[in-house]
């Protein structure tokens, strides 16, 4: 987030809109350039598939096995088992849906709020700008995570949508500021002035002229918001302040550390390490892919 804010403004030859036929081809060319990016994409696709189809691969009630409590890693239990003898792999795969869906919702809310408010604030200036920037300062200053913890006493986080909405509401500040500062410099450029002289509507100028030029920030922030939200929600479940209605990675972490004593008994260690492994692999995927997104959307890095 902070990195994105310090890089320079993209030049004015805007990347094609997302629907443009050559966009996908271009995206693929950029991704295929480095094996790391391909790996990142593969990881993200794998986790997305897991979130969509994972729960259908296993029975609704995951089988328990009293004879295999905290079983070590084997062919039958590739990641060992938990305190009931349920396969950790099954828990990870079925738990992915909540985690990823909530994170995707959070990223969408963050991007929608941050982009819209940043564009309006930077383009209209005047009182909308000062009001929006006051609110942004406020959002950026209040400690977000303690706020989430306090909100969890009243808000039902059992639904990924609710979780995503709250994460989005508390997380759009940085993006709004970055988009605003970009809009501020863009609105003085020739092509925007030309559009204004032509009498194009503010809606057209904001969304057709300015928005494509801040695309790289938005795309970067979308992915960063995904990882940030995953950490925040898994963290909330890890701390145990949210009632455990659903199985997910944070619940596994909490039970492993605070109930199973995985920190002191090597027996329960696979139960602790499986969700951590899932988190780290997913983060790795996002970080590797971020590099490609930067090049895709940042016209300065694009080769002619």
């Amino acid at each position, binding site marked *: 987030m902070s990195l994105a804010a310090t890089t320079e403004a993209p030049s004015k030859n805007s990347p094609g809109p997302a629907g443009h036929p050559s966009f996908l081809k271009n995206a693929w060319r950029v991704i295929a350039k480095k094996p790391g990016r391909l790996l990142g994409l593969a990881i993200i696709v794998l986790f997305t598939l897991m979130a969509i189809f994972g729960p259908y691969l296993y029975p609704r009630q995951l089988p328990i096995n009293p004879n295999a409590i905290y079983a070590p890693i084997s062919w039958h239990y590739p990641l060992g088992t938990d305190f009931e003898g349920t396969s950790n792999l099954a828990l990870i795969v079925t738990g992915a849906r909540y985690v990823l869906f909530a994170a995707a919702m959070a990223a969408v809310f963050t991007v929608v709020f941050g982009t819209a408010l940043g564009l309006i604030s930077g383009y209209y200036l005047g009182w909308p700008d000062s009001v929006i920037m006051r609110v942004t*300062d406020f959002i950026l200053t209040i400690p977000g995570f303690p706020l989430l913890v306090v909100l969890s006493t009243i808000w039902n986080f059992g639904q990924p949508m609710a979780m995503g909405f709250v994460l989005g509401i508390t997380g759009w500040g940085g993006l709004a500021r970055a988009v605003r500062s970009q809009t501020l410099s863009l609105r003085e450029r020739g092509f925007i002035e030309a559009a204004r002289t032509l009498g194009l509507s503010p809606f057209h100028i904001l969304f057709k002229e300015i928005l494509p030029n801040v695309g790289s920030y938005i795309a970067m922030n979308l992915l960063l918001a995904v990882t940030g939200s995953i950490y925040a929600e898994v963290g909330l479940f890890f*701390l145990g302040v949210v009632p455990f209605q659903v199985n997910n990675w944070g619940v596994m972490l909490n039970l492993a550390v605070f109930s199973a004593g995985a920190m002191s008994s090597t027996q329960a260690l696979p139960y602790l390490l499986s969700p951590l492994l899932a*988190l780290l692999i997913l983060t790795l995927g996002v970080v590797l892919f971020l590099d490609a997104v930067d090049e895709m959307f940042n016209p300065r890095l694009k080769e002619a």
Partner: protein
Amino acid sequence: MKNILVRLAKRIFAGIIMVLVMASFTFFLVRMMPGNPVSAKYNELIMRGMTPVQAMDEVRVMYGFIPHQPLWQQYLHYLVQILHLNLGTSISYEGVPVLHIILDAAPWTIILVTTGLIASFIVGVLAGVIAAVKRSSPTGNAITLSGSIMHGIPQFVMGLFLAYVFTTLWAILPFGAPYNAALTPGFNGPFISSLVRHAILPVATYALSSYGGWLLTMKSSVITVLGDDFILASEVRGIKAKTRVRYIAHNAILPLFTIFALSIGFMFGGSLFIEDIFDYPGLGNLLLHAIDARDYPLMSGAFLLITVAVIVANIFADFLYSVVDPRIRR
């Protein structure tokens, strides 16, 4: 100088407004809770055989507001109490004023966060400068990579990892209470060494988890400044290398103040994980305990104090910024 003071006054005013907004937020939050804990407590006391007057007094002391008044009156009463630093009494620590409990816990969190912040700032900024100057060498790449990795690891994973390695695998560092309870607190060798040894792991977690952010920002900032014309000009004019480094440092460090705000909030947010993992008795741990015990006055109090700490730190950072950046003085 006058400009700086005006700016400071404005910031303090905005900070006070922010604190009052957050206080109002927790007030309405507790009132909106399913089964409204205030009237629930009132009814419970009546059931125990208290007279309504007694019960009302009890609830008033506990939560700082009165159950049978219109909401706006309760709200005004609550705000007046807050301004008098009266945050009600705790429910789980029966009868102890909330202010007393949170002020007991606050120093642990604030000292740990500050130490972690300063340590990561110094190391991160220095490493960032090296990474920027040697950006095309293996050393520079390695430093940048270390920053990206540290930046990517969530705080609780870092905390769990350190706890596992240093308290389970090689049991060389203690965790739990801030010092060994067998020692008498005071200015003596064993006590201070125990204090430091207990603080190492939490401080290391704070520092490692924010080191990457400083490093990456400083690196990109230095690279930007290195490309500026005035650096080239000073080189051409033959100004001493030492002076040039000072120019670079002075200009490159300015953008760091803007991410300071984010960092402070992140650190205090992290205190929840870090104090939970290391079982350290600070504000984060207190907030979690209050939520577990449904101790709402304590919860509001702890949350409010965390907010106040973050806001004060921000005002301080902004003040430093206005002293360092000559453009603001004009």
